[in-house]
């Protein structure tokens, strides 16, 4: 590998602004705030401070909220006097049984698969960074890019519930309401997005340099 020849901002007494990407020369190093960016005013650090701890906290919080999000009803449909709650999974099963397998697939991927995938990948990235594993940094960076890009698509079910709740208001004939799981599920989506934002992918590459010091 040519890795040894590559200079990084960190080992050249420089740091890049996370917001506007301006590269600044710095006198000290470390994760704490060094200066404010002369261009955009954001705090400049060589790595996001407390990235690992904060990402762990957000991932674990997301995992906890994931349980009520899946066990409680996410929507409540009432028709002609009787009302019925649906969990995310029972909604998916209903659409498989009624033949709309593509709707079932969209909801399953966006609401069940993507959040779990995000949590698992972040777990793996955090552990691999903490153990300073040097295994396939490029592939791990790609995993990070994937979770950064797909997280927002989990919001689709929240939007569906919003539209259905606004439309299906037909008095006693049919009524649709959000269920208690909706708030937990929204929390899972927001927490996993925040977790991906607080993870610093440069940490993956740091262990590649440590060996050559």
């Amino acid at each position: 590998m040519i890795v040894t020849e590559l200079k990084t901002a960190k080992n050249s007494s420089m740091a890049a602004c996370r917001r506007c990407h301006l590269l600044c020369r710095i006198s000290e190093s470390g994760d704490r705030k060094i200066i404010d960016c002369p261009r955009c005013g954001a705090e400049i650090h060589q790595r996001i401070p407390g990235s690992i701890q904060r990402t762990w906290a957000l991932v674990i919080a997301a995992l906890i909220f994931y349980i009520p999000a899946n066990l409680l009803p996410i929507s409540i449909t009432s028709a002609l006097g009787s009302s019925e709650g649906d969990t995310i999974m029972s909604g998916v099963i209903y659409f498989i049984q009624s033949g709309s397998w593509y709707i079932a697939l969209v909801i399953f991927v966006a609401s069940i698969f993507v959040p779990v995938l995000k949590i698992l990948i972040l777990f793996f990235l955090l552990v691999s960074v903490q153990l300073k594993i040097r295994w396939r940094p490029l592939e791990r960076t790609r995993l990070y890019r994937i979770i950064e890009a797909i997280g927002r698509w989990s919001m689709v079910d929240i939007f569906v519930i919003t539209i259905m709740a606004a439309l299906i208001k037909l008095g006693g004939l049919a009524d649709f309401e959000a269920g208690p799981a909706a708030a937990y599920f929204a929390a899972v989506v927001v927490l996993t997005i925040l977790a991906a934002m607080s993870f610093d992918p440069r940490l993956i590459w740091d262990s590649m340099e440590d060996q050559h010091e």
Partner: protein
Amino acid sequence: MHNELLIACHECDVLHRIGRVPEGDSAICRRCGAVLFSHKKDSLDRSLALTLAGLLLFIIANAYPLLEIKLEGLYQATNLFGGVKVLYSGGYWEIALLVLCTAILFPFLELLIKLYILLPMKLNRRPWKMISLLNFLETIKPWGMMEVFMLGILVSVVKLLKMMTVIPGHSLYAFFVLIFVMAAGTASFDTHEIWEKAGDS
């Protein structure tokens, strides 16, 4: 302006010395493959035009009903804001706020701020409070989820069609075009160049 630019990859921290990047090309990190920045083609004119079109479509999309349903003589229509109100009055204010921000407020603010920055730049002027607004734009951008909302509309339509008659409203077409206009607007907006301009005051 510098002929050579020193830049650190935001994903793996490797330093790059970059010369002039031709229009339409991107500088790619040699270690991790991240896009360091792209030199967008006709960035200013294109993003300005797309932002104006986006604002117009946004207003249409939110002024008219999105979907209408009919079931046994009963009739109900809504736009997106109606959905937010229903969630709010049902006690789900957190979700109402989240939907309001991700599907209405942030995409709208993104368009407004872009117009505010691009229009003076087209006239060779520096917008007032440019840095603060750019900072705000970078903060809200990841939370604007118009394209996800569009998928939500499609899923809802298919769900509703199983139970009742669904009539697409005027705003649905505006929304559909808006998704592409916003995506093209993001692709043509040259964040790197705008930060560079904001820097040399």
